[in-house]
């Protein structure tokens, strides 16, 4: 392992200098670049797409999104300097407050289009389920670390999944199916990175299939509607989207038309009629990727997707660089969360995934989503910085072992 042989002051001085030159940055610049690039894309798209949405204030969504981004950036920088390992001490508090917030919003939250998802604050409507994703990642990572020696136990897998499924079920009750699914994915991802055996995943997969069959086939047949009919239609609509273009699949149809009409280089923001004439619903939130596709074509979509690829690649790299299991699990949860959101959202807009109402991280308009994503990236940066710090203190020791 490390050699701590006494060195001359001169040597030490040279070492210090070298150290200083090798680790000048306390964050991953490419990860930051990807995040800033995506925020820039978001602002660029929102500027034109939402110009006519709020009569009298053409920059309503633009300015607000910019403000959320600034708040998010500041929080990201702050949290990246924070020793994330200390979060483990707060694991029960974090988990309880997550459950509490979700219950509270179900009880007293404000209703938007039939679901209670947010608290209306003076400048901002806060969605606890968004923050909940991050809290859940941290809490689950802590629970796994607590049982690090019994990772192969069926009991551990069951407990961690249960800890994830409880808030997932509560979120789905709001109802917010998409975010609920994110919680489930986060649980699976944390277990996956922790090294839970493949047999357990196979068993979980089998359970999931049974659950899906039960909610979609068996329960309705027995007269119990677990999902509302529109939810079923949304989830299955992408399989046969043209059957009823005026109904739930209307959005899907319009989204595909928007993206397809962008062709190679896009119609330009001015001529993007699907967006500007409101044929594309929710074009500033869930369907913002369709706006990119329409306005900037395949080229624009490729740029955005590349930025996400960069983000995920750097995230996975951070995972491998974590100074401890806790960091790796958090990074794994965050990367899985981002990946799932990106693919479900983009897949929805291009008609290969169900309509679930998951925002596109950093692109979709929305304070809770933007700020929580930045918080997550802040945590990744903290794991990165502390991982590099640790390996610098014990240079290449682990590498030799591997």
């Amino acid at each position, binding site marked *: 392992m490390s050699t701590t042989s006494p060195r001359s002051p001169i040597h030490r001085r040279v070492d210090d200098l070298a150290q200083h030159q090798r680790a000048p940055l306390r964050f991953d610049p490419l990860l930051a670049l990807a995040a800033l690039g995506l925020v820039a894309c978001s602002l660029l798209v929102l500027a034109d797409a939402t110009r006519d949405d709020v009569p009298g204030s053409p920059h309503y969504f633009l300015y607000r999104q910019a403000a959320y981004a600034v708040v998010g950036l500041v929080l990201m920088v702050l949290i990246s300097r924070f*020793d994330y*390992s200390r979060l*483990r*001490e707060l694991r029960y508090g974090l988990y309880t407050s997550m459950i509490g917030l979700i219950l509270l919003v179900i009880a007293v939250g404000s209703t938007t289009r039939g679901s209670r998802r947010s608290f209306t604050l003076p400048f901002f409507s806060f969605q606890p389920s968004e923050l909940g994703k991050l809290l859940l990642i941290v809490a689950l990572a802590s629970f796994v*670390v607590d049982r*690090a*020696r019994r990772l192969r136990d069926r009991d551990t897998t069951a407990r961690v999944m249960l800890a994830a499924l409880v808030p997932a079920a509560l979120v789905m009750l709001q109802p917010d199916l998409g975010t609920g699914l994110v919680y489930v994915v986060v649980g699976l*991802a944390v277990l*996956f*990175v922790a*090294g839970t055996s493949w047999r357990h995943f196979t068993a979980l997969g089998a359970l999931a299939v049974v659950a899906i069959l039960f909610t979609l086939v068996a329960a309705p047949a027995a007269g119990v509607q677990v999902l509302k009919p529109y939810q079923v239609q949304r989830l299955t609509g992408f399989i046969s989207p043209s059957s009823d273009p005026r109904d739930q699949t209307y959005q899907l149809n319009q989204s*595909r*038309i*928007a*993206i*397809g*009409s*962008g*062709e*190679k280089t896009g*119609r330009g923001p001015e001529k993007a*009629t*699907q967006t500007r*004439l*409101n*044929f594309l*619903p929710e074009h500033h939130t869930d369907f913002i990727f369709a706006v990119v*596709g*329409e306005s900037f*074509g*395949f080229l624009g*979509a490729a740029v955005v*997707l590349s930025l996400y*690829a960069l983000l*995920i*690649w750097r995230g*996975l790299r951070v*995972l*491998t*660089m*974590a*100074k*401890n*299991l*806790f960091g*790796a699990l958090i990074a794994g949860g965050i990367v*899985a969360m981002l*990946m799932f959101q990106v*693919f479900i959202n*983009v*897949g929805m807009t*291009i*008609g*290969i995934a169900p309509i679930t109402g998951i925002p596109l991280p950093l692109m979709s308009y929305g304070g809770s989503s933007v700020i929580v994503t930045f918080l997550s990236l802040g945590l990744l940066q903290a794991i990165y910085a502390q*991982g590099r710090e640790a*390996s610098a203190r014990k240079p290449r020791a*682990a*590498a030799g*072992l*591997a």
Partner: protein
Amino acid sequence: MLQLQEDRRPPITPQLALRVAVLGGVALALFAIVFFRLWYLQVLSGDKYLAQANDNRVRDITVPAPRGDIVDRNGNVLVDNRVSIAVQIEVQKLPPAGPRRADLYRRLGQVIRLSPAKIAREVDEQHKALPYANVAVKQDVPPAVFDYLFERQNEFPGVTVERVFLRRYPHKELAAQLFGTVGQISPDELKLQRFKGVQQGTVVGQGGLEWSYDRWLRGTPGATRVQVDALGRPKGELAVREPVQGRQLKLSLDLDLQKAGQEAMAEAGGIPITNGVQNRGGAFVAMDPRNGEVLAMGSYPSFDPNVFAKPLKESTYKKLNSVENGAPLVDRAIDGLYPTGSTMKAITSVASLQSGVITPDTPINDPGSIQIGNIVFKNAGGTAHGTISLRTALQVSSDVFFYTMGARLNSVPGQPLQTWARRLGLGRTTGIDLPGETDGLVPSPAWRDRLYRKKLTDRPWSIGDNVNFAVGQGDLQATPIQMATAYSTIAADGRVPTPHIGLHIEDAAGRLLQEVDPPPSRHVKIGEANRQAILDGLHLAASAPGGTSADVFAGFPATVMGKTGTAERPGQGDQSWYVCYAYQGDHQRPIVVAVTIEQGGFGAQAAAPAARLILSQWFGAAKKLVVGQSATR
């Protein structure tokens, strides 16, 4: 740092490396799927979706074309258009009946100042009448209302505001029955060959001249291509194709003669006669015998066709068709079926002479009555005219003379009376350029015997039927236009003209594009001596002492050859007829006029005076109502 032992781990284990690799692999696969899908959507099928996107936003709004004007032979406007802003309702797009529809009616009512109940009633009534057409709730709304509703189409589902062209009839009642109505094309009409290429919602002629000449009058609608948003709100024009007005239709009608005819009908129809009936229904036709150009044609009573600007309400329609109001919608000139009285005698004369039953000079004794079979037929008033020939018989309208003809013609093979009646235009449509013409009835042995076999009448054909037919009584049913055509044929040397009201199709500047000049329906051969004898007789009737209408035309500055008629109609007063041929000088301005006035009494009492008024206008004579004294049929 506070860290537990478990938390300290080798930075990366092979297992973790594998799992990270799996995550990365999954991400890679998903990115690949997304890229391929995007490539498929945007590059491979991009043009298809671009077309769909344009379909979404582009709406073609049809701009109706104004219909062509209708003018008289001198270019006086009889029918033109005015622009009106109409608030219409598309019933299919209304919210379902219930509170939402009631709320819509309430809000709409506030905008156009109508009570919600009235709107609901209009919608119900008009939708029942024309289920495929938009309901016109209100017309002639101010432009501000147009702007208000046009910009708030999503707040008023099913409500449209449109600039529409409404037909305007500056002369109101004048020739009202001829023009017919216009209205949105019906789904059934859309399938017809004559409406080929017409778009749904186009206003087309639904009757009268508007129907007959629709092809030319209709015009070509324009289109405005607008961009709309997802709620259907217009967001700017993309392209405009101007509508093209329909062609102008010039009629053979003479406005002044038409006016004179309608005034004559009112004046003569209002003459107090013993039976006390006033404002009798009737009709007149004035025609150029040479070519069938209808110079004036009218039915009395008339109505103001401006009521058709809005879809007719059931109640208005009933009023216009009710017998108490004289059924003004009915065009009696082509649709009124009557026995013709003694005006038939000219036709009987042709049959008698051409079949050789008599010559123009064959003497026939008229002792005032005649027994045929076991029935005694009498002259009106029982007057005895002594031994007379055809000319005198027409002059004094001897019934016995023509009873004799009827009896003799009955036994001639080939039924010359029926044959000639049909040749001259009775019992068949004249082919006038108006829809809805009826053919009437020429009574014949075959017809009555068939009815008898079916037990629809109490007796078979008998000689008495022919006797009655010879003097225009009994079962004969003819229209004024048929009588005008028959007299024209006699006047025009056997050429049976096809009556027509349309004269020219013109462009807006009045330049001739196409002539409406139907050829004569057929030619019939009437011996010149025979024809001259009949015309002489008719001339004597209108000019010589003892002629049935001589006193009506005393001192009239034109040659008039006319026959009075008094048709007996069961259950009501006698119907007054007059049909004449007249010209000035050496056959200048020839004209045939047929007038009939229901319950007008003797021919000389109402119809002949009306004909005189019409001829006065035509020949520039002083218009004076001269009621004749002749009490013959």
